[in-house]
């Protein structure tokens, strides 16, 4: 719902505020993050293997471990979105944008929480998600399975690899160790 330099007018701004307030009473954010070692270009646990290859490997170069993370606004937000969609396309669009902003904010918070767990010589590289670049969407299966996401946060996949609830984000976040300066 980018407006560029244009300022939203009164009616729109008021509606955005109204729907945002309602959304905040409806969301039930949940998240999980878990650290895994990266060994020979893979994250392996049990029978599950998540390949760290292609542009993802470049992105995580120098990382010996990474966090897998998943956050969601919960199923209630989708119900809210269905409700407004049935009555107003404008509201649907606004709610969609509110959801996108809220889930991004949640993931920023998750990242901040993870950062607090790090050792002093460790830093995080930016979040990277399945479906971005050549990191295949099929990796969602392994990523969510390693996190036990359906049970822990209620996020699961459709047959076509979409996450449900829809306002959910999964990501891999590499941990870089700084070389001590001498």
């Amino acid at each position: 719902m980018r407006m560029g330099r244009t300022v939203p007018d009164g009616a729109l701004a008021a509606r955005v505020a109204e729907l945002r307030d309602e959304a905040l009473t409806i969301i039930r954010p949940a998240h999980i993050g878990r650290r895994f070692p990266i060994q020979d270009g893979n994250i392996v646990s049990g029978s599950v293997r998540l390949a760290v290859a292609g542009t993802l490997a470049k992105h995580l170069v120098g990382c010996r471990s990474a966090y897998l993370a998943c956050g969601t606004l919960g199923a209630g937000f989708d119900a809210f979105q269905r409700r407004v969609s049935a009555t107003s396309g404008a509201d649907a669009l606004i709610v969609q944008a509110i959801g996108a902003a809220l889930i991004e904010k949640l993931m920023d918070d998750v990242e901040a929480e993870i950062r607090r767990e790090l050792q002093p010589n460790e830093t995080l590289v930016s979040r990277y998600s399945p479906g971005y670049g050549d990191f295949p969407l099929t990796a969602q299966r392994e990523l969510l399975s390693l996190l036990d996401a359906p049970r822990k946060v209620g996020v699961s996949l459709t047959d076509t690899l979409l996450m449900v609830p829809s306002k959910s984000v999964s990501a891999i976040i590499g941990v870089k160790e700084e070389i001590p300066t001498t």
Partner: protein
Amino acid sequence: MKDILNKTPLLFLDGGMGTQLQAKGLQPGEIPELWNVTRPQDVRAVHEAYFTAGADVVYANTFGANAAKYHGDAPLADVLTAAIGIAREAADNVGGRRFVALDVGPTGRLLKPAGDFEFDAAYDAFAEQVSIGAKAGADLIVIETMGDTYELKAAVLAAKENASLPILATVALGDDGKLLTGGNVECVAALLEGLRVDALGFNCGLGPDRMLPYVKRLATSTTLHIAVKPNAGMPKVIDGRTVFTVGPEEFAQDIATLVEAGASIVGGCCGTTPAHIVALQSLATNLPPRATNHQPQTTKRTLITSGSRAVEIPFDDSIIIGERINPTGKKKLKVALTEGDVAYVLREAISQAEVGAHVLDVNVGVPGLDEPAVLDATVQAVQSVTDLPLQIDTSDPKALKRALRHYNGKALVNSVNGKEESMACVLPLVAQYGGVVVALTLDEAGIPPTADGRLAIAKRILARGAEYGLAPSDFVIDVLCLAVSADASSANIILETMRRVREELGCRTCLGVSNISFGLPARPLLNASFYTMALAAGLSAGIVNPLSADMMTAYRAYRALTGKDRTCAEWIASFKDWSPASPSQSATPTLQQDTGNQIPETGNSQLSAAIRRGLKADAATAAREALQNGKSPLDIIDGSIVPALETVGKGFESGNVFLPQLLMAAEAAGAAFEIVRAALPSQDSGTVKGPIIIATVKGDIHDIGKNICRALLENYGFKTIDLGRDVPPETIVEAARREKARLVGLSALMTTTVCFMEQTIKLVHQELPGCKVTVGGAVLTADYAEQIGADNYSKDAMGLVRYAEQLFDTPADKAI
């Protein structure tokens, strides 16, 4: 075997399985159930440790062994059969009276409408698991860690219908005491009591100290045995590992408080160990037998639920059942149901919810319609946009069965009556699927003219209900409302019967209030007065039109005057802006001062301004005023609505107006047009273009873009039939054929679903030559659209409107 769960004073369950297997080397991501065939000795050792610790029941290692979740190398049947066998060996090795439970956990898939997994597919997966587990010799079935009432219902039905073993069902609550999909304690209790499980409760999710308030609430909502199987506290991450910190002694102390609150089946979940179960044993020594410990309430509450909301049908207060989704006498709804216009039905649902209805009636009885299919689909669609419980209203037994089975929650069933045929058909369905049933006081001889006669029928229905295990609290008696114009004593008989149903039968009542005024003028006035009288006589649930200000005023006044609206808060909220000039409505928003100014001014009427600014209510008011001032409907359309919409449309195309503003303007225009259209001679009001069939393709659940297209198309005057999302190609072709549509619009957001778009295009072109297909969605480009055979690609909703205008060969300046 049914008495396993009745052991007194306490029945002991086992502790955590997954965390015990992890201690033996199970890795995250590894399939625990595979150990049943690869490392049976380790699984058996865990069971033996729990039996030795004092558990009466162990859960076999089958939590994720359903076809939807399990994808191991060994066949599912082998894994399940081995699991029951291992647990049985452990029971025999330890000796004593020990039981083996088939453990049924969630599929890991989210059911529709939240996800894409069909209720019937979940049922099938559970049914297979239950059949194999029962055959392998399980003593009981435990359904656990459920986070969604709908999946829970699928699992319980599968357990009931594929085995005859005792059923214990427990759910996992989150920090806020709710399920993942939003259901609360009362939702779970009502659903499971309705489905007639043997015991119910909570597991996982919370630690034992946090469960206390919810166990207390559960104890007031159910008369069944309550089970608790909490984690060893909340998980903490220490050095990257998940750990549970509550030790055995502390755990046992916390469980003791849960037992005091009403729990009688106890065990542990994640992080608990045999030592925790040992510590629980001391609890039993100090307790009296369970029968006196757990006191069932004398009167059960009458609860109906959706997936996330429980509504009590009160004995000493009243609720509103919205009557508007019932085609009797409603031409528009009849047309909408016949044409499959789900959006219209959904708007009826939402508008009733917004004004304060507590329950929505759903009746789709239109002659010639496939009622079982349409009722089922309509109930599911309405449940996807509102959390109000529904009253499933049909006289077709097949339709009732199908809708009740697929309903998420415990429904209100409308209705059973005193005819033998009706009781024999409806009561078993309520016993099977759960529900509260409306009992009409009529029988083969018709409606008795006296209170005595109606009461006798009610008694007969209650007695028949008891044969199926239904209590008086599972019924709401409808004493039947007949027109006072036909019989002057009608109202008096209704009121007397209602009072006596309450006093003599202890039952709740409901009534279709507006029938009273049939055949008389000024019906709303008479209805509202009679509604007040019925409320005073103890009406528990009025089936009324909540959009009628007169009815809602009567309801709110009654509650304020009888002290049910404590501090009159509801009355004040509804009428704080009331003035004699606007007797029935709170003030409508006035035209706001606009700070932004991106939309160029054209036309000078107030109506044009309201449309350009996207103010729906103001646009409707301005249109009404323009009509009152003598402007002709066509003048208003051509002089104000169309130019304003054109200005906004052009602004959007040139990048000065943004999508939400365009949509708000279009919706404001639509609201104005509705008013004006009502004033047009009837033959002119049919000037709609289309129809256009639109859908999100199979496999895809993103429908925001598609909904925006629908909204814009409708507001530009196109008849649009929206088939929803995840729609198979065949359904789209069938609808296009039936409606003789010349245009089909398809949306897909993901690369993984464009293949279904391609299939749909092929099928449309093959089956319906001459029907065009236009496509849109985030992953599409004009080139890609051409490659997959689409006739047109629109980059946005406005582009689609322009294409449709061109196709239907209508001059743009008439586009409304």
